[in-house]
């Protein structure tokens, strides 16, 4: 695998935009809502553009930019060239525990550089910032995006303003502050920080990646779907389970699988999409279960802080796509989240953060309720690393008393274990 990539000097141009609600077209711009109806803007792709085939794609460098024809730029990217291409790992012991035919883990918990799937969206957002000549960037974050943006901005030499709730996990705060961004800790929830960030973007004109660069930022998430399809040998799984905070990941997974079907790179039916939330913040699960179009905002109360968005911007879209795919959604409580983290660790060797615990526990609940079938091949999107949320599990892990460095003491432990767990 190539470890050094050069920076081509071609000018990078962002795609024009179109309103997903009213359909009106707009010039490429650091803007996230339609000036006419305030609906969400999305990049427009030329349907006649040349697309690579499987052979050409497979020969490209192993980063998310191998799928550049499906990302919203003309010209070659210049920033975050190493993001993406995380492993898709077979998890037979987890499949057995869940009661499904096959389980695979999309391991974005090992993403470069910041150990979460947010490296994908930051990659496209910072290339949009480059295209628009923006040198100050920012975000509102529940932690992982803060880590990803701070890391990428440090590498690229950009000024980054990062707004986080005051009570984030210490590891996520440290893994942001170490890059020396302008870190703003907001007394309030993520939703408070997000509202403030929207006002900041409006006032100062900075490139706030999940506000006015959001149309370009979100496209990065599609690459998880592209990678899953390619890593499965150019085919689609039966089902995908993903955590939901704002709901964007689910919508972009659906878009990504659909675009690969349209391009005839894969065949068959799109996967059923399943969304996972914590009971203490489950507005999208509520939408899926009720089947209506009225999002009821909540005040989050969960250990899964990376999913603690009480007013999810893509909640309605995510719920509709989940239902139309034939999937479903599930919410799990904090005890189940910790069980999910431990089940993932003990069966796959992967330490996921609290959102991973939500995903695994929700998959277990969905399998038990029959929403996932015993015949299903299921991909779990593990989006963040457990080293960021060790507090969630440290209290329930019984650590042994230290021993003296004597063989006899080890022998005593072995003998005790043999007695307590006879073969």
């Amino acid at each position: 695998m190539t470890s050094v990539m050069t920076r081509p000097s071609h000018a990078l141009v962002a795609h024009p935009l179109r309103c997903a609600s009213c359909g009106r077209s707009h010039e490429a711009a650091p803007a996230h809502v339609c000036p006419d109806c305030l609906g969400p803007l999305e990049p427009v792709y030329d349907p006649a553009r040349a697309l690579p085939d499987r052979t050409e794609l497979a020969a490209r460098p192993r980063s998310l930019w191998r799928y550049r024809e499906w990302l919203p730029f003309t010209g070659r990217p210049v920033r975050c060239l190493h993001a993406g291409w995380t492993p898709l790992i077979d998890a037979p012991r987890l499949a057995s525990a869940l009661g499904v035919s096959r389980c695979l883990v999309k391991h974005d918990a090992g993403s470069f550089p910041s150990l979460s799937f947010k490296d994908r969206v930051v990659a496209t957002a910072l290339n949009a910032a480059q295209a628009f000549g923006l040198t100050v960037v920012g975000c509102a974050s529940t932690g992982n995006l803060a880590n990803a943006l701070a890391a990428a901005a440090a590498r690229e030499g950009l000024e980054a303003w990062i707004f986080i709730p005051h009570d984030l996990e210490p590891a996520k705060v440290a893994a942001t502050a170490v890059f020396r961004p302008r870190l703003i800790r907001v007394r309030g929830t993520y939703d408070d920080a997000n509202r403030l960030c929207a006002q900041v973007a409006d006032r100062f004109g900075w490139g706030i990646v999940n506000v006015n660069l959001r149309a370009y930022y979100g496209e990065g998430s599609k690459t998880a779907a592209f990678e899953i399809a390619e890593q499965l040998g150019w085919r689609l799984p039966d089902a995908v389970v993903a955590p939901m905070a704002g709901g964007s990941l689910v919508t972009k997974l659906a878009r990504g699988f659909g675009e690969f079907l349209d391009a005839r790179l894969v065949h068959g039916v799109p996967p059923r999409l399943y969304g996972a939330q914590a009971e203490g913040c489950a507005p999208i699960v509520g939408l899926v279960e009720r089947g209506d179009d009225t999002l009821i905002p909540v005040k989050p109360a969960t250990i899964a802080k990376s999913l603690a968005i009480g007013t999810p911007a893509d909640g309605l879209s995510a719920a509709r796509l989940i239902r139309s795919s034939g999937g479903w959604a599930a919410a799990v409580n904090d005890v189940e989240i910790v069980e999910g983290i431990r089940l993932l660790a003990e069966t796959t060797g992967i330490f996921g953060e609290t959102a991973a615990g939500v995903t695994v526990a929700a998959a277990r609940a969905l399998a038990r309720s029959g929403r996932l079938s015993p015949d299903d091949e299921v991909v779990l999107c593990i989006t963040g690393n457990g080293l960021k949320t060790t507090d969630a599990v440290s209290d329930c892990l019984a650590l042994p008393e230290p021993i003296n460095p004597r063989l006899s003491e080890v022998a005593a432990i072995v003998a005790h274990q043999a007695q307590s767990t006879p073969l």
Partner: protein
Amino acid sequence: MPTVNLPSVLTPLANGLHTLDAVGSTVGEAIDDVARRFPSLSPRLRDEHGAPYPFVTIYLNDEDIRFIGGFGAPVQPSDELSVVPAVAGG
């Protein structure tokens, strides 16, 4: 009297003003007062059924009005209402 802050995307509908004074003792009354004075702004504040326009969120000071009674929430003369595009974050 309470003030209503608008995002830049809506200021063309309010003679270019970012901040408007409003008359009313509830959020709904203050919003309706602004809507009467700037009719083209009205459909970006309430939908055709009178409910909050779905692509904006309205805050009373720092609180999303959906948590405090919506348009029926009382406002004081010193309060600030902020209209913010809803599609953000995540």
